[in-house]
């Protein structure tokens, strides 16, 4: 039994003229979405110029002066430039890799649950963290990590005979704390996506494998994982575009905006927010967004090229 991907009528180049005519209904289906993206995403792109201008309200966006790359300076000349870049990158690498591992694992586990009620219960509960905002979650983490009243210092550490740790002044614990929190918030949600792919796998494959005597575990590794590989790759490629972005709530709220933790919790987004708090320079905040976009763009294009060479049908474009 071999697997085939969905394809339309195989079209040879010679047939191109009739092909286009034949595809008109397909173009019609694409049209509404394309129109929306044009209005919502492409029309506003003229705003990208703001990153290069010194906005003056009397002159308006188009009349304002060009200032070249001046708005970008503060991103690079700060003594923290390396730290925020390093933090952003490392966290995102960890988040992406761990996110895939946890998402796929839990999707597979959920697929093993036979009892419908239990399945729905698990699915609902693990989705909870995603529904709540970081502000609220930060109340919970503060409840855990606060110096005198936090649950960990008060109830858990004493069980092991360890004295209370001042969590909010020690930067070294936070890469772990933030990573755990990020996974915790996201796994219930990302596993939903993988789960839908798994559920779509033809049952007959499993039946055949069972007849051949394969155990469930073997079926997972031989059938399930390979069949959701395209989904994994797609999600990976899509997430690469966010390489230089960070989840603001996670890095600002959860560490309680504590200055002593900056060396491991300051990322590009939080740096931009803090520095522009007082001076509110529109061009500078646009410049930050532009910088993050360019990096994400390069990452996605690069990764897409690689994927195209390896298994071209999974490339984004």
């Amino acid at each position, binding site marked *: 039994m071999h697997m085939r991907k969905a394809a339309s009528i195989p079209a040879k180049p010679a047939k191109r003229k009739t092909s286009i005519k034949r595809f*008109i*209904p397909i173009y*019609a*289906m694409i*049209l*509404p979405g394309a*129109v*929306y993206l044009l*209005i919502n995403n492409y029309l506003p792109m003229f705003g990208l110029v703001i990153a290069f201008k*010194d*906005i*003056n*309200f*009397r*002159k*308006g*966006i188009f009349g304002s002066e060009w200032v070249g790359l*001046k708005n970008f*300076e*503060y991103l690079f*000349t*700060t*003594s*923290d430039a390396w730290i925020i870049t390093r933090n952003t990158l490392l966290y995102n690498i960890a988040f992406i890799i761990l996110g895939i591992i946890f998402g796929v694992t839990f999707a597979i586990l959920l697929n093993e649950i036979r009892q419908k009620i239990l399945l729905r219960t698990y699915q609902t509960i693990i989705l909870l963290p995603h529904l709540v905002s970081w502000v609220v979650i930060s109340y919970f983490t*503060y409840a855990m990590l*606060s*110096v*005198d009243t936090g649950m960990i210092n008060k109830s858990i550490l004493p069980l092991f005979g360890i004295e209370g740790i001042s969590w*909010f*002044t020690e930067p070294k614990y936070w890469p772990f704390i933030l990573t755990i929190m990020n996974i915790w918030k996201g796994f219930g949600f990302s596993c939903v996506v993988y789960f839908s792919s798994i559920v779509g796998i033809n049952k007959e494959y499993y039946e055949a494998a069972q007849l051949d005597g394969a155990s469930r575990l073997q079926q997972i590794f031989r059938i399930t994982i390979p069949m959701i590989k395209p989904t994994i790759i797609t999600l990976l490629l899509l997430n690469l575009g966010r390489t230089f972005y960070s989840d603001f709530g996670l890095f600002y709220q959860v560490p*309680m*905006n*504590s*200055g*002593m933790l*900056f060396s491991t919790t*300051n990322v590009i987004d939080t*740096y931009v927010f*803090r*520095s*522009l*708090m*007082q*001076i*509110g*320079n*529109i061009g*500078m905040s646009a410049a930050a967004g532009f910088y993050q976009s360019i990096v994400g763009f390069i990452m996605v294009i690069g990764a897409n090229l690689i994927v195209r060479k390896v298994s071209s049908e999974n490339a984004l474009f």
Partner: protein
Amino acid sequence: MKRFWTLLLALVLTVSLLSGCSGSDSSSSDSSAVVSQQESEPVDDGPVEEVVMALFVAGAGNSSDVQMIEDAINEIIVEKINTRVKIEIIAGSNYSQQMTLMLTGGEPLDLMVVTGSEFPTYVGREQIIGLNDLLDQYGAGIKEHVGDFLRATSVDGEVYAVPTIRDYSRGGGLNIRKDLLDKYGIDPSTLESLEDMTEVFQVVKEGEGADFYPLVIAGAGTSFLDNYRTVDTLNDGNGVLLNGGYDNTDIVLYEESEEYSNLLNLFWDWYQKGYIQKDIATTTESYGSIMRTGNAMCWFTNCKPGIQQVAERNTGYEIETVQFLDYFSFTGQVNSFSWAIAQNSSSPEAAMKFMNLMFSDVEVMTYLSYGLEDVHYVTQADGHVGYPEGEDQTTIGWSLNTSWLMGNQFLLPNWEGEPLDLWDKQKAANDNARMSMALGFVFDNSNVTTEVAAVQSVRDEYKRVVENGAGDPAVLIPEYVAKLKANGIERIISEKQSQLDAWIANQN
């Protein structure tokens, strides 16, 4: 046939998208319908002008009755100045963003609030217009009541905004629980300086126990020195004038000064002895909720007239306000909140006329600050006003309690709990304060935006820890200063000094 349906479906979907987007302008038709019913014959010739006022709202209180307030105000001002006002309620957290959007979107906007830190930026990017001519023509009330303090919102001799009338001066001190002072036999009049408090803390801590932390934070996110201020911040705290700028114009890096070290060493000493709440650097609570637990005694405050009553209302305890620093006034204190006219205002004259009423007309001011009589507030026998019987801030539809933002609050009757001579006292504190020699100087940071941004991030890293006594100054101050310098603070200071010197030369 199917192809036809395909196309039709696509078309319908696309059209529904587009038509859904061009929804009707229902909002503007509402208010104009209401107002046109009220229009009697206007006094002046010509059509009635409309002024859009973007009201800054942050904190507790309701604003759901805004339409009522708008109608009441319009009834009287149409006759007086041939103008109507439209009040837009904008959340403080979104205010600057919203102003930018409305202006770039070309929406009608006339009156807007400007905070002190934003003021130079707004002027620099021409977001607000110069007001000298308009003040001469229509701003007699403003000139009379704000007077010389208008220089705190002026650049190069042109006034760009009008500071709201409130505490133009500050004198740092502590709000202390009276019951504890009584319990330990401490006479507040003997407390003359911060060092005196060390002994007080020791006695109280011994008496109340290990879980009692006498000194707490005033507001989450602030530091002690925000309230216990001894310097003229010259807009942004990047380079300040010591001694409130009273007797010198030499800008120094405050964090390098001896005074800074001394203060922080005192705080650190207190922290180690358990006199300051342990989580002060990260807490999200403010003095109100902390005091109510009963485990705290005092916090730093600006000892302006009336603060004691505010403190008592927010904590439920009787409070003794102990002032350590004399009142002094500087630009940043005066221009912390002001009103300005937006760049694309369609009728600046009408806007100025209305602003003038905000600063000189009791009726307009009362509507804005308190609401409608007998609906939102009642007048009491002794001249105070307060919420109607059985109501409070959460149940009344207009209960913002920010009269200090609305214009000239000195015109208003006093709210219950405020001393009846509150306005006189505040005016005296304003007029008689020591003035900084740089009052009226506004720093234009457009040449050093990169450095200002970078420095701001450094401040966020250190300020709330070291200025709240939560870290060892001997270690942290050198680090802090080094990092500030590495991010260009000396360039900011030299830029500021040259601007200040030029400004001073111009004054003479």
